[in-house]
């Protein structure tokens, strides 16, 4: 791990030395407020407006939390989109509108996510298959199985379950609270537990971690399970919010690539070992405020795509450009 220590610019302080998440959050807030003021929609800065903004972060935020773990250990998970669809469809199929089935359905989905996570982790950590290929493949398999079985798997979630997605105690939507709680849990795990410290160790230097006595494979596996669980919760949330799942909600939401993008925008290194959930939240907030601002400005759908592409690149470039080494 030879690290270039020759940089003499360490004393120079600029905005680039600020933590990435803070800068991204500030940028998101700036974009949102500017858009609201510029289009004369100051009421979007009210509590309801903001809770609407936060609501937009939930699905992607939940996936992003899980994806953060996968990327932190130096892996990546492209199967999340397919898993989201599968979970959403499975949940609505199992519930069939029956409140009594809420808990069994949730449990079944969690078990499914566990299995997918273990398979992903196993392929990556134990078999040594490149994570992009491994998770792309499991995603394809899931998506195929889902599309094949979907018409057989019709159904809808229980109304009580659906209500969860629409409740807003104290004006804060319940799903936003859920995201907040899970984010705190994730932060806690990463920052305060041995398990979290070991994840960083495995991602930062797998050989070193192994020599330090860590069972690297287990941590990669665990990270993949967490990534799958994140997708699972996102799928359940979407099922609740949308009443029933379709085999395309994951793919149409582009949750695979977007979750990777927000994690990286939040300052987590694709090579692993650096970053955290705060950055991911900042990233998803940036995406949500962009969405909301595009709406306020009435940006054309295709132009939106162009801008989003440019912003993804710019947001990462701002921090990446000072890297000394080569990046591929």
């Amino acid at each position, binding site marked *: *791990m*030879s*690290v270039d*220590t*020759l940089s*003499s*610019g*360490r004393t120079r302080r600029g905005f680039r030395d600020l933590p990435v998440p803070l800068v991204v959050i500030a940028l998101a807030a700036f974009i949102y407020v500017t858009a609201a003021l510029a289009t004369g929609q100051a009421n979007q800065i009210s509590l309801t407006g903001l809770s609407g903004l936060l609501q937009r972060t939930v699905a992607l935020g939940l996936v992003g939390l899980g994806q953060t773990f996968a990327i932190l250990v130096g892996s990546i998970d492209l199967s999340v989109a397919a898993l989201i669809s599968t979970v959403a469809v499975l949940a609505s199929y199992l519930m069939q509108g029956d409140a009594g089935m809420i808990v069994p359905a949730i449990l079944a989905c969690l078990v499914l996510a566990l299995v997918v996570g273990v398979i992903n982790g196993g392929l990556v950590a134990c078999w040594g298959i490149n994570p992009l290929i491994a998770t792309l493949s499991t995603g394809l398999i899931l998506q195929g199985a889902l599309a094949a079985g979907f018409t057989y798997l019709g159904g809808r979630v229980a109304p009580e379950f659906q209500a969860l997605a629409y409740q807003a105690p104290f004006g804060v939507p319940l799903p936003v609270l859920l995201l907040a709680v899970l984010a705190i849990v994730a932060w806690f795990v990463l*920052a*305060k*537990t*041995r398990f*979290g*410290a*070991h994840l*960083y*160790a495995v991602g*930062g*230097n797998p*050989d*070193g*971690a*192994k*020599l*330090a*006595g*860590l*069972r690297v494979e287990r941590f990669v596996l665990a990270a993949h399970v967490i990534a799958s669980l994140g997708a699972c919760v996102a799928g359940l949330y979407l099922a609740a919010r949308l009443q029933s799942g379709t085999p395309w909600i994951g793919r149409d939401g582009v949750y695979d690539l977007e979750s990777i993008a927000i994690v990286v925008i939040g300052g987590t*290194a694709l090579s692993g*070992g*650096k970053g955290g959930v705060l950055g991911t939240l900042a990233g998803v907030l940036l995406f949500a405020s962009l969405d909301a601002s595009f709406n306020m400005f009435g940006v054309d759908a295709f132009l939106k795509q162009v801008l989003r592409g440019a912003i993804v690149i710019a947001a990462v470039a701002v921090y990446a450009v000072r890297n000394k080494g080569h990046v591929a």
Partner: protein
Amino acid sequence: MTAVLEMRGIGKAFNAVAALDAVDFDCRAGEVHVICGENGAGKSTLMKVLGGSYRPDAGEVLLDGKSVRFLHPREARAAGISIVHQELSLLPFRTVAENIFTGMEPTRWGLLDRPRMQDRARALLQRLGSAIRPDALVADLSIAEQQLVEIAKAMLVDAKVLVMDEPTAALDDRDARSLLDLVLRMKAEGVAIIYISHRMPEVMAIADRVTVLKDGRRVWTRDRADVTVNAIVTAMVGRELQDFYPARSPTAPGSPVLEVRGGGNAQLRDIDFVARAGEIVGVAGLEDSRKSVLAQALFGDAPFTAGQVRIDGQPARLRSPREAAAVGIGYLPGDRKREGIAPRQSVRDNALLTLQAMAPVLSSPQGGARSRPEVDQSLNDMDVRAGDFGQEIATLSGGNQQKAIIARWLMQEPRVFVFVEPTRGIDVAAKAAIYETMRALANSGRAIVMVSSDLPEIIGVSDRILVMHQGRIAGELPAGAEEGAVMRLALGVAAATVAGEMAS
């Protein structure tokens, strides 16, 4: 004194090639047992067996007389075997304390006990005589400091057996000395220490016993009193090694080939020196002297932003390695694996890489070398030993990789050769061969700049010695200068005095 550790008849093969063959080895509490051997002799493999990274095919390991079988490094660690690895295994973006405790974090109610980590890390580092802050990021430390963190990591557990695999390879003389002091203190505390090194003075200074491995077999194990450097070297290479350092050229150096006037950049100041045809200019200095930055500046990797460089009297612009290569500078990087080889390419392509880099893009992959036999001839001239030059270079030993990289530059026929730590991690026999090559290059009318942390090498090989201190050239010494003189300059204590001596 009984052996804490005993390894009996250890055998290990890769693809039916024996890496270890019935090796016996033991180590007692409170002794330093040095293992010597050429690269590929099986030292690291033996330690990986001990550390639980490899499972032996044959033989057994006894710890305190009981047979143990490690399936994972964690089991070896738990059994009291600590290893300071040759490769740094640190996490750059985590703090020193987090790194030291990797895998052994203390907890309180199931949570990380950070205050305790900080305190124990500080205590450990103090014991090592270091003032590194436990909450500093590893990325902000120097290589030497990182090495100390690595040692602190190994010392975290109360080790019965401490293995140090070339711990001084990345250190300069001063840091190396304090490390050796530490080893002696640990020994006094009753730890069984296994020490692997290529540096003979070091070996002679701290060893209680010495074991020599060759081709996966043990040659002998002897007490310190019964060994000489010559005996070790002979056992390692299997023949007498007469003169380690090649004879200096009898003729006086020729005209200046490389001239630097007032060179400087963010880290270097007032660099003035000349390297003449036929001479080897050694550049010495401590780890923080930025001597390697000077090498990078000469090769355009950390370009000079001030001053002037002339090659054969012609002003040269060195803003990138490519430009440097184009004006006739060759460069042998210090970190072979990270900066030298393209591991998955063939030996031949690695040797051809600079020719390929400088040739027109769409020219043949021979890169201007007239034929494949010619390339192979250059490799054979350098005595690169490979079954087939079409095989991936990663499969070769370090010495052979180094020689292939020298061959790469030889085909480019540079005027100036910059060698950075040319023999780091290379065994004795290969070292001698590389010194011979350097001398031969100089004798063919080239100027050689050799940057090295290995003081005996600097003194033994250089025709002149530049000593750097804090980004400046603190002074110049003639061939065969005293170690003490070099160290004084390097420490910056006697710069004025020495300069005065030089003037008179």
